């Protein structure tokens, strides 16, 4: 049995650590690229969203590498996602990978235990202590990655030589990927946080603060959103995003079962405009807009084309009393980088004018050097 999974940002790194330590034959399909998207689009029903198409492309490329147990998340009441695994399995069978199985990981109901059980099954019934210890190691890697990414989001906006932070980030991802024990991992994390801190920065800069909200997958997979965060960084904008895989695992797998939900605050903020969970991240999108309207200079709302929850959110957002400039970017295989850049530039220009005119907030007092 050869295991593989679709990409979502750097998620493959913790999974790779997990599976290799459990001696599972694990292959990683190529990082999502144009071919992945073309393959996915070619074999997908036309009205589906880019997460489905890219994931299908990843799965096809994994099947080409001989993988026969492909992991896909499923869940009830989320959105179409609950139907994806079975459709993708059928499509894979039809295009000639008849022995491929799509292994479903329930992310809405079984959560931690379901995930661990699936891993146990894939690892040929490895012992529980071994699974739990490797799972913990995987989580540590995930947390390290996200901790570094949070800093990178800030440094990109103010670095003197554009692109330095991104280069360091790529090296950090590589180092974390290679780290084989807690000590090396810890060292790599501290080392890269330190190097990010020492990147020469513009001491005068008062970067615009833009929140990125929207659908989970397009937020976390840079290929699907045409790397909107780096582009904003080049324009000197600091990006703030609450969605991270590490915070999802922290709350969804552990703290939610104890009754702690980080999203309660967001949901309460959304209540006057959207009273109920509509699946996907629709509720959170509305809530985050309301919650951060005072805090951010602007918001970029990312949504896949034909995403049902985000369409509802997009319709509701303009009517809230809390107002803040929002740019909705619809991600699709037809979206082009140039088109997106033009819109980003215009949006950032608008935010800058607004700040200069003083109609927006007072310039924030930012403390320099305190990035880590």
């Amino acid at each position, binding site marked *: 049995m050869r295991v593989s999974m679709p990409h979502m940002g750097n998620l493959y790194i913790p999974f790779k650590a997990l599976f290799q330590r459990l001696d599972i034959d694990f292959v990683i399909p190529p990082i999502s690229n144009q071919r992945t998207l073309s393959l996915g689009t070619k074999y997908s*029903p*036309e*009205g*589906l969203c880019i997460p489905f198409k890219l994931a299908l492309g990843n799965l096809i490329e994994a099947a080409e590498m001989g993988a026969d147990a492909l992991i896909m998340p499923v869940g*009830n*009441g989320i*959105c*179409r996602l*609950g*139907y994806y695994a*079975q*459709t993708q399995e*059928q499509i894979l069978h*039809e295009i000639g990978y008849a022995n491929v199985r799509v292994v479903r990981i329930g992310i809405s109901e079984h959560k931690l235990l379901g995930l661990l059980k699936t891993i146990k099954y894939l690892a040929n019934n490895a012992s529980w202590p071994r699974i739990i210890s490797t799972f913990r190691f995987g989580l540590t890697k995930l947390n390290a990655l996200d901790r570094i990414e949070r800093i990178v989001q800030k440094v990109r906006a103010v670095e003197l030589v554009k692109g330095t932070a991104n280069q360091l980030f790529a090296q950090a991802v590589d180092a974390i990927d290679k780290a084989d024990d807690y000590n090396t991992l810890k060292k790599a994390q501290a080392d890269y946080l330190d190097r990010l801190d020492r990147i020469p920065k513009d001491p005068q800069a008062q970067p615009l603060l833009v929140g990125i909200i929207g659908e989970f997958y397009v937020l976390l997979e840079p290929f699907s959103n045409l790397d909107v965060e780096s582009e904003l960084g080049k324009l000197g904008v600091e990006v703030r995003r609450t969605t991270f895989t590490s915070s999802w695992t922290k709350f969804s797998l552990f703290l939610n079962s104890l009754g702690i939900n980080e999203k309660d605050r967001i949901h309460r903020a959304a209540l006057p*405009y*959207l*009273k*109920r*969970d*509509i*699946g*996907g991240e*629709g509720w959170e999108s509305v809530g985050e807009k309301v919650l951060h309207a005072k805090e951010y200079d602007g918001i970029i709302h990312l949504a896949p*084309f*034909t*995403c*049902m*929850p985000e*369409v*509802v959110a*997009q*319709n*509701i957002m*303009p*009517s809230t009393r809390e107002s803040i400039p929002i740019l*909705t970017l*619809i991600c699709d295989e037809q979206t082009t980088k140039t088109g997106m850049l033009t819109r980003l530039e215009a949006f950032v220009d608008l935010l800058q004018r607004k700040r200069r005119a003083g109609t927006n907030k007072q310039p924030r007092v930012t403390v320099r050097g305190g990035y880590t």
Partner: protein
Amino acid sequence: MTKIGIPRALLYYHYYPMWQTFFQELGAEVVVSPPTTPAILAEGAARVVADTCLPVKAFLGHVLFLTKKCDRIFIPAIRSMGKNNYSCSKFLGLPDMTRAVIPESPPLLEIDIDNNQGKGNLYRAIYRLGRHFTWNPSKVRQASLAAWQAYLNYRKLMASQGLTPPETIARMAGTPETEHSNHTESAQATIALIGHPYLLYDEYINHRIIHRLEQANSKVLTPEMLTAGELESAVARLAGKAYWSYEEEVVGAGGHYLQSGADGIIGLMAFGCGPDSLIMDTVRRQASRQRTTPFMSLTLEEHTAEAGIVTRLEAFLEMIHRKKKRQAERCE
């Protein structure tokens, strides 16, 4: 008397007799918007972002029509109609979306239906809805039982007589029926039309497709003409377990007619419909595996041109006639 507005769109075709009875039993007057007109659709579409699906745009147009003509508008938020199946986000967010894009609408009457949470939850939700009219729980109970009976009668009438929802609603209301031009005897082909009732029976949205098929001497079958058992077993065969609340109208009906009773199947779906993009494809894939019954899917949106639909219908019917002729020759 309170006037309750019910938009003639989306779930109207599923539940109108039930809703009407419920509100009338509680002493309210029910106002229904007219069938979709170009103006209704255009006004609804102008309020929302372009990516919103066609039936929701039409729905909002109906709400706009009812504004100022009634005291409250009834819009349910349906999350789930059964164990472990779910509705589209747009059904769930319908009341909130309406409030957001039509701020001038009269206050909404909402009800949250989530049958996944069990019967107690449903009863409480119904009582909360009834409380707008009376504090007496037994009155609400009576009204809801009468409403349920009306719903059962509606389904029974539809299944036993082979009527479409608008015809059944008209018959239940006792209005004189328009002449039903079903050329059952002289029909050259039997065409099954699958899809959600709000597409199948909204004549403006679908460019009178049923009428056109009947004009071309075809007998038209629809999902409502099948029993719940037939639909369920076909869903089980094609998709295992229904994931969507109204999946059986597409997968169930499609699966059933692929096996028996139809010379060809036409699937109607709306552009941007999330669930349909997956489940219509399930039917299409089954049809291409089976290679017995021709299948065509038509995607509707506000820019769909009548001529385009007519051409495709003609070509599809032509193909079916030839196929039947060839089969007849082979038999001789």
